[in-house]
């Protein structure tokens, strides 16, 4: 049996990658997992070292996926078994883990959301090298909506990644447009070598879910019959929806795990490229580079 090539959903942070994974993961021909963060390193051993250094949940998505697929489910015991298995694979390339997961869920096609690699060209290069025939979906969100949601999540947090800040100010201030531009520029460089299967604006799902789901299915060569579309509309039933067990609770982007204030959701739904940014206190708007790129994606 031939293992279907995985599909990577690549997006800037807070652009809906985890949410879209939940939608696609409900299609009977697909199997979506949380964010794996495999391509932070070349080998599993290096990856485990990076996971150990980090104080966040970078390992959680991979541990949850392995637990669910190989070790009896997303429990603390399954997570511990997944960790032990990874340690036995230390000398293996990280790409081998991706192949393993793709094989295990076959004949369903593996879907992996990824809003971290787009921030780092080296990670994208590893992804491309590991799976030269990789199929990708470039998921977009208006930088205004992305910024409003990220800012709402960051509100009151003690730790916000440096990647989301403008360091021209001391202390640095939150400015999500920087990560948006960085990710989109890196992705366009990646796609210059091999175009994505689809460039998909996440807002299409809000405008007309069925039509958007049909276009996704068409791009992926999937049936879009009524039962599949109904399943896709119930992403809350995705096996990875919500938090994982205590030892690996995360693995999804915050927007798939937490709730936003209604006011933030309202503001995010009124995108613009021309007004001062609500998360800044200095009246600054989008940088010209951000505006140009957003307009090229069809946003205004």
């Amino acid at each position, binding site marked *: 049996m031939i293992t279907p090539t995985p599909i990577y959903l690549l997006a800037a942070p807070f652009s809906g990658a985890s949410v879209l994974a939940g939608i696609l993961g409900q299609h009977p021909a697909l199997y979506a997992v949380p964010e794996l963060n495999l391509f932070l390193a070349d080998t599993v051993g290096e990856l485990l070292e990076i996971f150990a250094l980090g104080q966040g949940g970078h390992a959680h998505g991979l541990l949850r996926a392995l637990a669910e697929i190989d070790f009896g489910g997303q429990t603390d015991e399954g997570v511990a078994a997944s960790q032990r298995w990874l340690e036995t694979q230390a000398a293996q390339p990280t790409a081998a883990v991706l192949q393993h997961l793709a094989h295990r869920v076959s004949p369903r096609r593996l879907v992996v959301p990824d809003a971290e690699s787009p921030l780092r060209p080296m990670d994208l290069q590893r992804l491309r090298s590991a799976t030269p025939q990789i199929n990708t979906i470039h998921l977009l969100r208006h930088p205004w909506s992305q910024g409003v949601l990220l800012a709402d999540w960051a509100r009151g947090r003690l730790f916000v990644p440096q990647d989301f800040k403008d360091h*021209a100010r001391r202390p640095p201030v939150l400015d999500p447009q920087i990560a948006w531009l960085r990710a989109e520029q890196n992705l366009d460089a990646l796609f210059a070598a091999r175009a994505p299967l689809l460039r998909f604006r996440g807002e299409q799902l809000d405008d007309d879910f069925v039509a958007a789901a049909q276009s996704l299915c068409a791009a992926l060569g999937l049936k879009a019959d009524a039962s599949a579309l109904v399943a896709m509309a119930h992403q809350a039933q995705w096996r990875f929806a919500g938090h994982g067990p205590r030892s690996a609770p995360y693995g999804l982007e915050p927007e798939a795990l937490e709730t936003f204030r209604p006011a933030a959701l309202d503001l995010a739904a009124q995108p613009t490229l021309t007004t001062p940014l609500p998360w800044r206190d200095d009246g600054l708007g989008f940088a010209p580079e951000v505006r140009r790129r957003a307009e090229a994606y069809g946003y205004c």
Partner: protein
Amino acid sequence: MDADGSKGVPLQGGDFRLTCLNGFGDGWNHYAHSMAWFRGKIYVGTSRAQLAALRLAGQRKGVRPWPIESPDDIYDIDRRAQIWEYTPETDEWRLAYRSPVVHGNNGRDDVPSYIGFRGMAVIQDTSDAEPCLYISSWSPHTAHSPDVLRTVDGVTYAAIARPPFGAAVRTCRALEYFDGRAHLSPTASGTKKGFNQDISSEAVIYGCADMGRGEWVPVNEEGFGNKANGTVFELVQFNGHLYGGTVNPVTGTEIWKTKGGKPPYTWTKVLDCGAGRGRLNEGSGSMCVFKGALYVGCGIINGGYHRAAKIGPAAAEMIRIWPDDSWDLIAGEARHTPWGLKFPLSGMGPGMDSLFNGYFWRLCEHQGWLYAGTFSWAMMIPYMAVNRWPEDMLTLLRRWGDQEFVARFGGAELWRSPDGVHWQPVTRNGFGNKFNWGIRNIVSTPHGLFVATANPFGPKVAVKREGRWQYVPNPRGGCEVWLGSTAADALPVQPQ
């Protein structure tokens, strides 16, 4: 050739072998401070006993115990700087030169003329029948002004005429031949009141059309007309221009360029204000031309923490400048700047995501790959009062303990890239020696890539045994020189 234009095999950590250790057998050879490929051999100029001098200068308050055993009288150490020569074919090192001593202004007869050799360049000047090796020196304030030495054959060394340095100038660093002139700039100052190894008493570039006959003249206005530019720290030629990067503790480094001509040259400012990072990019410490752009390592002097000016600590950034003066941030902090929104193209923050990397100390192209070596102060952690550090750092320290911490993170880093955007580490722990706190020199040769370190943790280093500090001989203290080569480099090299 790869799609990205790199033609050679990238070097991995395992491709490097140690050609010498322990400061050529003398742990007081702390820094391999200069290095050049000349007449089929590698030459290394050392600087001696820096860490002992720093203790006596009182510049590192709060460090306890002092990391190395060092006497109360600096003259108890032989500080005569040395030049070593390596022959690849025989794998042998030879002491080629040792500084003489002079009668000092302190009345002693054993004052070294040179305590360090901080720069080297192979130049064929007007009076030179063939390319010669020129070496810039570091002289103590009790001796004379620093010299530039010249050797034709690697055996005999002689000082050439000095530029008209002010009395406080103690060393120069960069030596760059451009548009028919050699150029250098003072980069340290010192008097009996103290010294600063990275800021000179004058921000002047001197040029000389014939070093055999003297006549050094200033080629720029002092500080390029800005009093805050304390020093012109690095020089390099790129795209038909001479570029100079300053140390500016007030507003951040400035980079200037000139087409040359008749001195004083006309200079154009390329960037200022530390490329929009301000004082955290206080200086431009390393420069290298690579695939059509000028790569610049920016950061804070004195290892990433300029205590006297209250700048830092902060890790270093790398930028690249294009011929049209536009520039990219390669590794560093994303920010809005007068030049537009900048984010790190490599995806990596300052110091390649390590707070400890205070400098990108050297950049070098080798077989189509750019190599970047850092200075890391991680090895100082066991000797520092860390109780006031940020909580996330303390969490890491508590998790492992300081000895385990430096075993993992101690030592300088060497990175490589085929395009300036995609970077991978060659070593992140000083080639397995935590005492190698800096990659001080990198030189590409037909035999491979030579990498020389700064390692001031000799001859005796403080270690904690059974809860007590004691000084013990350190067999891996003192500078080291590594040679990285692949099977392709091992092919016979035609004699020059």
